[in-house]
């Protein structure tokens, strides 16, 4: 099966459990199992290639300019990990089906699980390290969801957050390391990077890259000093712990170290960092594990310890070490997953995981006892079980490793780690299963159903089979090792045997097992000693660090970013002006190339009005109605300015927009207070004046400067002017640009306009549905109301001129391509015509005559414009290619038909819909706030029941 399918299956499959949720728990688990099984079989179909020692590659260019290619690669190392991820995943899914209770949302759980599975498979199959990073981050995110799955548990949430913080930070460091690595080699493809060992190790950036990548690996694999997150992640449901901490998440760091082993290992830096961290983690984890009373915490720290062991083995940098590491990964995955699941069974049946409350379960849960005991003995390193074999190899390797020039250091530490490891395994067996049966269990324990014990039992079968017949696993482990080593070293010849003769490793093993038994014997006094000794707790330290970081961030950000809009606006203005000033003073200035045009009397008069209105607004802005009139003057002067400076289209648009804006603001002012009180201090007003004057001077200087100079290079407008008629079939260049040259922009703009209108509509709906509704209904108008809401003159007038307005709109629309006009302006004109009806005859009257809802008009506009664009696909042209032709219907002159006109129709409809929907929404607020007025102004309809009388009495206080 193609590698893409294998990676994609869990991701797409993760959509299914949620859908199957209502079909029952078994169906949900079943569909998840099927998805995983398909991916598992898919991996297995590649087995022949892997056995032949070949590599499966599936490259697809994604962003080649960035070096980011979606290249997947399957070699025996990836195959090994994918097999673990998917194989153990299958068992976990089966187990989780029976573990989760009816209250848990199973669809959600399995969706997260499949997401995680997909991300993990992605990591081990990536050939591109940037792609690998993407999957790496995905595992952090999906494991966050899994660990925090029981959202109601605070420990679950905290544990998930801690895991995300630690692994996320590590991931960030790793991104840096990977980028450096890619820069050194000049490629982000693993297959290329792995060929360049000498180049990488000789580079001065090798050490930073190494440290950054190791930070990522150590955080993910919970190596000292980042080991603390793993035990806290135990708040997750047990299937998650079993999955994440036996075969997958924590092995991702190990995987990456193994993947990078050929190019990164073998240097003193690698040896010192990796071996030391691994050794400390191994011993520390084992010691803490012994004194944990929570079964899962014990297993968590034992996982930390075993990860340390594997890391230490990889750190030695020898081929034998790498082989032992690979073998231990396999063994650890089997016995640890079995142990976690057993712990889950005990928790499930006895309702406690506290070892102090347990004991004597051997008689009550014989099946679980056998499974857990075999797995624990394997972890302790007892012969005939697989843990013994890899532990022997580890001790053998430790015996040859010299750290800090001390021959004894590594062997002694390794033995010590094994000793404590054996001790906690014995404690697990002894304190949980052996001993007398108690009568104070929180619940009466008994063996669970097959669904719960079968998955761990299958793993224990593997434990025993590999333990008795190691030669079965040997070829496969050697194949994987060969892929880890690459060209850097030969696969060691050593055979996997139970009996190697009386070698030092055997003595060390005996010391560890005997010492472990002694530790168990003296457990009580040593526990008292352990409890008495003060030790740093990771969680408070972590929380203090987080709190410190948050405080620092607050100290830096809050003074600038305190939620006050005025402050942002002031800061933004000052910053923009100073950046501009910097550019102004450091750049070069060319001489003026244009001469100032003389200003006649009329422009000066217009300028005076504009300036007077603006200044008036600033000084009179507390009177809101007055400032609204003044801003109308400003808008009018700007429109006239556009006419004067040869922009008739702009003038028409500005003028019509001005009208609807003022209506809109009037509608808003109906509710808002009419006066703005004096609140700001004099100092503040002086400050604001300063900022305003600086900003004004800056824009003045900038515009004055460039208006007196020609463009540096000739503007593209030459092209538009030259091609407007030839290519677009129109003489109004502005309109041709809008509907043809830059039609796609316009298309985006009408969509934005439509969204804005819908947003206003949605806000109105929310307001009308909430507590504001009651407030509006009880509102007393704060202004004097008109005695006659629908004056006869106005009603008649607006109705009479309505057809005229529509005709003008139609005319403006049609001539738009060749003369000033077009969809935008026509849309605004028609909107004004309709708004006049609302104003004169009232909301109810106008709404009753409304055939199409305005949302539909917006939608139709966008759709027509879009379909016009799509139409050009049918003649194999790009989106929105326009065409035109000339037609002649006999009595008329020849006229033009252009697809651009159809597009302009879309613009027209979108503008009408958007403007009307906005204004209508405001009016609805107003309508609610006033007494319902007559819906039939000036109408005489004999068929109506309530007849004419109420209409002529103007009782209404309609605001529109």
């Amino acid at each position: 099966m193609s590698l893409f399918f294998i990676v994609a299956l869990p991701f797409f499959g993760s959509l299914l459990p949620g859908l199957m949720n209502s079909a029952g728990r078994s169906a949900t688990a079943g569909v998840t199992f099927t998805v995983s099984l398909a991916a598992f079989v898919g991996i297995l179909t590649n087995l022949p290639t892997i056995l032949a020692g070949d590599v499966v590659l599936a490259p697809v260019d994604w962003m080649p300019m960035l070096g980011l290619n979606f290249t997947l690669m399957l070699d025996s190392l990836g195959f090994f990990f994918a097999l673990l991820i998917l194989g153990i995943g299958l068992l976990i899914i089966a187990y989780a089906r029976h573990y989760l209770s009816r209250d848990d949302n199973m669809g959600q759980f399995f969706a997260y699980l499949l997401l995680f599975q997909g991300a993990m498979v992605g990591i081990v199959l990536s050939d591109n390290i940037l792609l690998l990073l993407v999957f790496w981050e995905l595992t952090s995110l999906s494991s966050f969801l899994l660990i925090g799955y029981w959202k109601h548990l605070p420990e679950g949430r905290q544990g998930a957050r801690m895991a995300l913080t630690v692994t996320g930070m590590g991931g960030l460091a790793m991104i840096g390391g990977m980028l450096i690595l890619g820069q050194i080699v000049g490629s982000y493809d693993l297959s290329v990077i792995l060929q360049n060992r000498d180049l990488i190790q000789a580079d001065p950036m090798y050490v930073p890259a190494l440290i950054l990548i190791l930070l990522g690996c150590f955080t993910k694999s919970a190596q000292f000093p980042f080991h603390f997150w793993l035990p806290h992640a135990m708040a997750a449901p047990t299937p998650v712990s079993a999955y994440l901490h036996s075969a997958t998440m924590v092995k991702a760091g190990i995987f990456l170290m193994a993947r990078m082993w050929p190019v990164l290992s073998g240097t003193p830096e690698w040896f010192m960092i990796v071996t030391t961290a691994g050794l400390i983690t191994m011993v520390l984890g084992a010691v803490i594990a012994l004194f944990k009373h929570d079964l899962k915490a014990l297993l968590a720290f034992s996982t930390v310890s075993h990860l340390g062991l594997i890391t230490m083995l990889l750190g030695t940098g020898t081929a034998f070490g790498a082989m032992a590491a690979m073998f231990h990964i396999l063994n650890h995955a089997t016995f640890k997953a079995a142990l976690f699941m057993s712990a889950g069974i005990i928790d499930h049946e006895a309702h406690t995981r506290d070892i102090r409350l347990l004991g004597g379960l051997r008689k009550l849960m014989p099946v679980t006892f056998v499974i857990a005991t075999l797995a624990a003995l394997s972890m302790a390193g007892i012969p005939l079980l697989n843990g013994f074999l890899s532990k022997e190899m580890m001790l053998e390797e430790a015996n040859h490793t010299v750290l800090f020039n001390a021959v004894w250091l590594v062997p002694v530490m390794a033995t010590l780690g094994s000793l404590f490891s054996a001790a906690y395994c014995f404690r697990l067996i002894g304190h949980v299963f052996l001993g007398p049966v108690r009568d104070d269990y929180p619940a009466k324990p008994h063996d669970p159903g097959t669904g719960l014990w079968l998955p761990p039992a299958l793993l224990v079968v593997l434990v025993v089979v590999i333990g008795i017949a190691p030669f079965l696993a040997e070829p496969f482990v050697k194949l994987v090792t060969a892929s880890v080593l690459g060209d850097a070293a030969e696969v060691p010849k050593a055979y996997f045997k139970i009996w190697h003769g009386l070698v030092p490793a055997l003595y060390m093993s005996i010391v560890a097992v005997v010492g472990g038994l002694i530790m168990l014997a003296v457990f009580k006094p040593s526990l008292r000693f352990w409890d008495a000794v003060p030790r740093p707790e990771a969680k408070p330290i972590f929380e203090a660090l987080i709190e410190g970081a948050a405080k620092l961030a607050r100290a830096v950000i809050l003074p600038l970013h305190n939620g006050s809009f005025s402050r942002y606006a002031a800061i933004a203005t000052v910053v923009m002006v100073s950046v501009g000033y910097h550019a102004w003073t450091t750049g070069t200035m060319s001489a003026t190339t244009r001469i100032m045009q003389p200003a006649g009397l009329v422009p000066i008069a217009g300028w005076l009005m504009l300036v007077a209105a603006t200044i008036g607004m600033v000084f009179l802005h507390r009177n809101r109605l007055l400032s609204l009139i003044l801003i109308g003057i400003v808008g009018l002067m700007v429109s006239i300015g556009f006419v004067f400076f040869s922009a008739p289209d702009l003038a028409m648009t500005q003028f019509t927009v001005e009208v609807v804006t003022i209506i809109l603001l009037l509608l808003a002012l109906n509710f808002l207070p009419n006066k703005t009180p004096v609140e700001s201090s004099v100092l503040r007003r002086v400050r604001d004046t300063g900022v305003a004057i600086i900003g004004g001077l800056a824009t003045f200087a900038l515009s004055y400067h460039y208006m007196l100079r020609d463009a540096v290079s000739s503007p593209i407008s030459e092209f538009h002017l030259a091609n407007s008629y030839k290519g677009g079939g129109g003489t109004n260049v502005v309109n041709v640009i809008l509907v043809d040259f830059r039609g796609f922009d316009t298309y985006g703009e009408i969509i934005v306009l439509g969204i804005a209108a819908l947003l206003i509509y949605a806000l109105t709906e929310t307001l009308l549905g909430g507590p504001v509704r009651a407030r509006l209904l009880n509102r007393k108008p704060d202004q004097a109301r008109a005695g006659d809401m629908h004056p006869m003159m106005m009603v008649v007038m607006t109705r009479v001129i309505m057809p005229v307005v529509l005709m003008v709109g139609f005319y403006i629309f049609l001539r738009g391509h060749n003369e000033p006009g077009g969809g935008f302006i026509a849309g605004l004109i028609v909107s004004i015509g309709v708004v006049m009806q609302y104003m004169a005859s009232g909301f109810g009257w106008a709404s009753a005559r409304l055939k199409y809802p305005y949302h539909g008009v917006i939608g139709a506009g966008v759709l027509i414009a879009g379909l016009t664009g799509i139409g050009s696909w049918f003649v194999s042209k790009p989106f929105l290619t326009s065409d035109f032709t000339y037609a002649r219907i006999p009595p008329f002159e020849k006229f033009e038909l252009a697809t651009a006109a159809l597009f302009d129709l879309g613009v027209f409809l979108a503008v009408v819909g958007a403007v009307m929907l906005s204004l209508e929404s405001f009016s609805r607020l107003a309508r609610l706030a006033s007494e319902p007025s007559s819906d039939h102004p000036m109408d005489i309809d004999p068929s109506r029941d309530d007849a004419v009388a109420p209409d002529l009495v103007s009782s209404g206080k309609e605001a529109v």
Partner: protein
Amino acid sequence: MEFLVASAIGILTSGGIYLMLRLRTFPVILGISLLTYAVNVFLFASGRLTTGAPPILRDGIETYADPLPQALVLTAIVISFGMTAVVVMIGLGAFLGSDDDHVDDQPEAETNTAAVKDAPEARS
């Protein structure tokens, strides 16, 4: 003429910024509207000032005003209407919901006094 337009842009900007820094929603909205004018005129002026030469193609005429800034500003005007409407709606919604038209969150104690101070005006 260039001086007139440039100074108009500057004055519109100044007025806009000053009103934008006020504490109540309505002047802030008007300030943003003034800034919109300033920005639109500024963009328009980037095509340089031309009188009596609209970009409508005619036989025998060679000089036209720069059409591109005009097209850009045309859509900008329409979009700014949509934006103004949204901002007004948000401001109005906030006022109707809390009887307070301050732009910024008021400290607890001040909110009460402000509400009391506003109340008579709202009903006057």
